[in-house]
C-alpha cells in the first residue's frame, strides 16, 4: 500500500514538474530571444487597418445575459446527469427520481421558450 501511494504521488509530481518546466523554458526562450522594438502604434487596437471607429466599452444588451444564464443552468444540469448516470445503471427507482429532476428542468425550459427568452431579436 505504502509503495503504491508513493509511486502514485511520484507520478503526479513528475507530471506537474514536467509541465511547468516546459512552460518555463518556452517563456524564458521567448524573453531571451525575441527582439524588443516597443512602439506606441503597435499597441493600438486592430480594426482591419483603420483607426478604431468607437470605443468598445459599451453596455451589452440584455439578451446576451438571458442566453448566458440559460446556458449555465442547463449546462450544470447536463453535468449532474452525467455524474448520476454512471451510478444508477439498471435501477428503475433511480430512473424515476432522475426523470423527475429532468422533468422539472424541462418545465423550466418550456417556460423560457414560451416567454421568448430563446428568441434572439427581442
Amino acid at each position: 500500500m505504502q509503495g503504491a501511494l508513493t509511486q502514485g504521488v511520484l507520478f503526479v509530481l513528475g507530471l506537474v514538474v514536467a509541465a511547468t518546466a516546459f512552460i518555463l523554458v518556452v517563456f524564458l526562450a521567448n524573453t531571451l530571444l525575441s527582439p524588443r522594438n516597443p512602439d506606441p502604434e503597435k499597441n493600438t487596437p486592430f480594426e482591419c487597418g483603420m483607426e478604431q471607429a468607437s470605443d468598445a466599452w459599451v453596455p451589452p444588451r440584455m439578451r446576451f445575459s438571458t442566453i448566458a444564464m440559460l446556458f449555465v443552468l442547463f449546462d450544470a444540469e447536463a453535468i449532474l446527469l452525467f455524474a448520476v448516470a454512471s451510478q444508477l445503471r439498471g435501477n428503475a427507482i433511480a430512473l424515476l427520481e432522475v426523470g423527475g429532476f429532468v422533468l422539472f428542468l424541462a418545465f423550466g425550459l418550456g417556460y423560457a421558450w414560451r416567454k421568448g427568452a430563446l428568441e434572439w431579436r427581442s
Partner: protein
Amino acid sequence: MAIVDKLGAALDNGAAGAILTSVDALADWSRGQSLWPMPMGTACCAMELIAASFSKFDFDRLGTFPRPDPRHTDVMVLAGTITEKMKPAVKRLYDQMPDPKWVVAMGNCTVPGGIFYYDTYSVVRGADSFLPVDVYISGCPPRPEALQDGILQLRELVRTESISRGKRHARNLLLPGAPAGASDGGGDAE
C-alpha cells in the same frame, strides 16, 4: 535596453561567439520554418496567394499558415496594388505586427508600381517607399511557385539574423549555381 539586447551584446563582445552562433542558429531555424504570412491581398496577386495556399500548390508544407490578423503573423505578404487610400491602412497593419517581422513584396505592383506606374494619380509606386521590404517577387501575377520560392529565400535571409542587434551571419544568399566569387554573404557586420 531589453534583456535580449544585453545578452546579445555580452555574447557578441565576449569570447562566447560560439554560444551566440548556436543560439542564433536555433532561433533562426525555428523562425524560418514557421513564417506565418499576413495576406495583405488587395488585387490579382491575392488570387494567386489563395491558389498557392490550396491543394494544388500547398503553401502549408513550407510552414506558412495564413492568418488575416497582424498579431499572429511574422511576414506581411503584400499581394496586389497599393493605392494612396490604402497606404495608411497597410502601414498601420505593418506597425501592429509583433517583432521579428519581415515584408515580402509580391507582384510588380508592389515592387515598382508595375503596369500602373504611368498615368495614375492614386497608385503608390513600390511598397519600399514606406515599408522595409525583404524579398521582392516579380510577375504579374507571379506564379504560386514563385511566391513559394520567395518564402524560401526569406527563410535563407532569416537564417542570417542574430539576437545581438545589427549583427548578421554570413550565409551564401545567392541561388545555387551562381558564380562562387560573387557570394559575399554579407559578412559579419561589426
